[in-house]
């Protein structure tokens, strides 16, 4: 019941928005990898198929999560009215076009024999809008003037890289499930190599992001909070990045027998942990966003610790 004080954390965007950003990233990342693989050809056919099957459903479920967070979901149809200034409106258009393209690509690839120029054009446009979707999930936060932590400019970079990582891990997981335990060694090795490269890139991006946040007073508060956040440190950084990196390295240098159960387990565990980490990253970035400190004439106005609320039974409140 206390009035909102500057310096305190935002509480309006929570899990629904984190899941929306997470699934938007997965959809964009998985489709980008699938479409690029589609151009490469037969050798990575399986990852193309799995990626195409992931893109559209991930975005559809993500959009439902966004609707669930809206105060008046029946007015969601108005969401794209101001693409000139609002990133939610722009995002609505980007995601809508991307969903149509990814669905079209999936249908053409899986249920028809149409190939050639038409599919190439759809794939190229799809990649453009997929990258747009991945970037949008970060720019949406970066355009919020009220939360300095999100405005350091690095959030879109982190989210794009994380989207590629989570998209990649989802494809990997899908390949393991679709292959029913007999995934061939060569694609698994390639996937592990790509995963290592992407995770290293994400580590660099997150370090750059936090370092940028530490340089300014208002974002620094949020940066300190995120580093005190156990879910971020243990769930994301250690279990979501560190462990998958180690598992992928083991897989990369040790895929001896095609379809060996232990290798599939390593890949599966690494992918699941990487996905959980991606979700925790978004949730932590959201919940650690704090309003800027207000200042005037040398005074700083921000949250001051207050005594706890009196318990029922004391003063005017009726006894329990």
């Amino acid at each position, binding site marked *: 019941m206390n009035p909102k004080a500057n310096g305190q954390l935002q509480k309006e965007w929570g899990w629904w928005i984190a899941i929306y950003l997470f699934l938007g990233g997965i959809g964009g990342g998985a489709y980008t990898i699938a479409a690029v693989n589609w151009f490469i050809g037969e050798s990575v056919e399986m990852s193309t198929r799995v990626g195409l099957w992931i893109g559209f459903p991930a975005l559809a479920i993500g959009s439902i999560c966004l609707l669930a967070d809206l105060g008046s979901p029946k007015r969601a149809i*108005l969401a794209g009215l101001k693409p000139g200034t609002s990133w939610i409106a722009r995002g609505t258009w980007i995601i809508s076009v991307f969903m149509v393209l990814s669905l079209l690509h999936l249908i053409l690839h899986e249920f028809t024999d149409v190939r050639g120029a038409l599919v190439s054009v759809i794939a190229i446009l799809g990649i453009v809008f997929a990258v747009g979707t991945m970037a949008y999930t970060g720019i949406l936060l970066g355009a919020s003037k*009220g939360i300095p932590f*999100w405005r350091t400019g690095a959030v879109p970079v982190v989210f794009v890289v994380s989207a590629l990582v989570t998209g990649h891990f989802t494809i990997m997981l899908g390949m393991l499930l679709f292959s029913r335990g007999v995934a061939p060694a060569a694609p698994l090795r390639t996937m592990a190599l790509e995963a290592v490269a992407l995770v290293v890139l994400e580590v660099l991006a997150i370090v750059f992001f936090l370092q940028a946040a530490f340089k300014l007073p208002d974002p620094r508060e949020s940066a300190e909070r995120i580093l005190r956040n156990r879910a971020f440190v243990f769930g994301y950084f250690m279990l979501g990045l560190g462990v998958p990196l180690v598992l992928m390295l083991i897989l990369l240098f040790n895929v001896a027998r095609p379809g060996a159960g232990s290798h599939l387990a390593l890949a599966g565990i690494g992918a699941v942990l990487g996905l959980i980490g991606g979700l925790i990253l978004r949730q932590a970035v959201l919940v650690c966003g704090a309003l800027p400190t207000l200042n005037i004439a040398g005074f700083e106005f921000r949250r001051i610790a207050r005594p706890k609320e009196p318990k029922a039974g004391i003063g005017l409140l009726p006894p329990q």
Partner: protein
Amino acid sequence: MPRYGMVIDLKRCYGCYACVMACKVKNHTPPGVFWARILKGESGTFPNTVRQALPVLCMQCDEPSCMEVCPTGATKQRDDGIVIVDKDECMGCKYCMMACPYGARYSVEKWESYFPDGLPLSPYEEFTKKKWEEKSGVGVATKCDFCVDRIGDGKLPACVDACPANARTFGDLEDPNSEISILIKKYRGEVLNPEIGNKPKVYYLAPR
């Protein structure tokens, strides 16, 4: 056309919360929603420290970031500069709340009683809830609108009227002879966090 603004003299404000209460009574805001707030700030190092109250409300910015990010166009700026929310156009995405650096916006998902343990709403709360839903409602963004209905009736905003220390002055920033314009010029009125660039129309006179 006037361009409404407010000046708050921090030397006069002693943080009595009369403005907060007047706003709640006038605008029927639900529990947890404070369109007018008081923040407490500290300055100096021990033992030479000073504590200062800072009344805060929607700054009615000339370049409101909340309006910029609104995807539906529900947030609008009137010709007199007051920023308002059209409850029938707001979809409740809460993006404006992320965009307001002054923390002036609120959204409630349901009306909760002021009383604990799930007690039913009192008759006054029922009345307040009805009035609130007429003007704003649950699931949409809400904020201070400088009491536009009172201004329309030729009255001052409720917080200005209620201030026992006469710390608040409301008026037309376009008129160089208005009390507010003279105060800003004479005492070098400042806005909060000008580096953000929203050009607020609520000015403060320094506490010392």
